[in-house]
């Protein structure tokens, strides 16, 4: 079976937010039958990358089950959340901090598919050069 098509859109086309801003996100699913979807999870999270093991923090989480109300989980769905004060997006030397929206789709037969869309929180430039 093909992968479902997960489309994500944020209210800010530049995907650049400040702490305290309200992030509004729409997503919808295509190329998948409604009956095969068990649940859809949407989350706003940050994670690190670089030379260390990855850290992960979840700011917002919502799970929608197919068994709850008789709704088509593929339909366009909107969620929103006020963004926190920290951690800010950071493009460091050994550590980078990324903010993303993650939509995870759970299908019958324990299959799951995931789509991420990154955004910037704060306006920090790249890591400062070390000065003697």
């Amino acid at each position: 079976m093909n992968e479902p098509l997960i489309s994500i859109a944020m209210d800010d086309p530049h995907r650049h937010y400040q702490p305290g801003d309200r992030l509004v996100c729409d997503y919808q699913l295509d190329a998948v039958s409604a009956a095969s979807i068990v649940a859809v999870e949407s989350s706003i999270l940050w994670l690190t990358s670089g030379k260390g093991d990855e850290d992960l923090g979840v700011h917002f989480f919502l799970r929608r089950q197919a068994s709850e109300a008789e709704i088509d989980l593929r339909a366009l769905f909107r969620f929103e959340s006020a963004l926190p004060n920290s951690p800010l997006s950071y493009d460091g030397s050994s550590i980078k901090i990324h903010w993303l929206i993650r939509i995870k789709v759970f299908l019958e037969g324990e299959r799951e598919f995931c789509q991420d869309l990154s955004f910037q929180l704060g306006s920090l430039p790249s890591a400062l050069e070390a000065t003697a």
Partner: protein
Amino acid sequence: MIVPTEPGRNPFSTCWIRPGACPYLCADQGQLESWSGLLEEAGGGQLVGPHGVGKSTLMASLVELLQKGGQPIQHCRLLAGQHRLPGTLQPGNLPIGCWLAIDGFEQLSAWRRRGTIKSCRRRGIRLLVTSHRAFGFGHVIQLQPGLATVGRVVDFLQRRGPQLVTASDLGGLLVSHGDDIRELLFACYDLYERRQRAAGE
């Protein structure tokens, strides 16, 4: 305009180089299949080499290859302080003829290592382990990656973006880090980062 950075943008980030994330890339394309065949003939074996040489990565690739070939296999990674196999992976609890792959065989005590080898031999279980020295069973694969293998790994990691770490860098890095490919890849991370920033400026 600030563009959000994607996780793992630097191709040498740990998410791309940890065992399982990157396949073991031999200099010779058929080498992996050849090793798999030798291990099957010998009824198991050892992947031997110093720290950071790629033993766990090779084990992950061999396990995947054996699994694709329909071989039943149990895989476990022993961490620091873990001195015994989980109960479900004790040779006595495994079906006869399956593979048991242990990453970090030296975490077991000498007595448990001998017991595991004997039990596997008795039950016809094919044992595949990673270690820093040979323990005298099965086929021994001594890992000594050279410039060609390292070059393939670096090309593979940079396949989706600019090739900022070039072949001319690798000779010096290999001399500095010897067999420790993990440290070499961390050095590539720093080099890639510096060059990417310089290109951005």
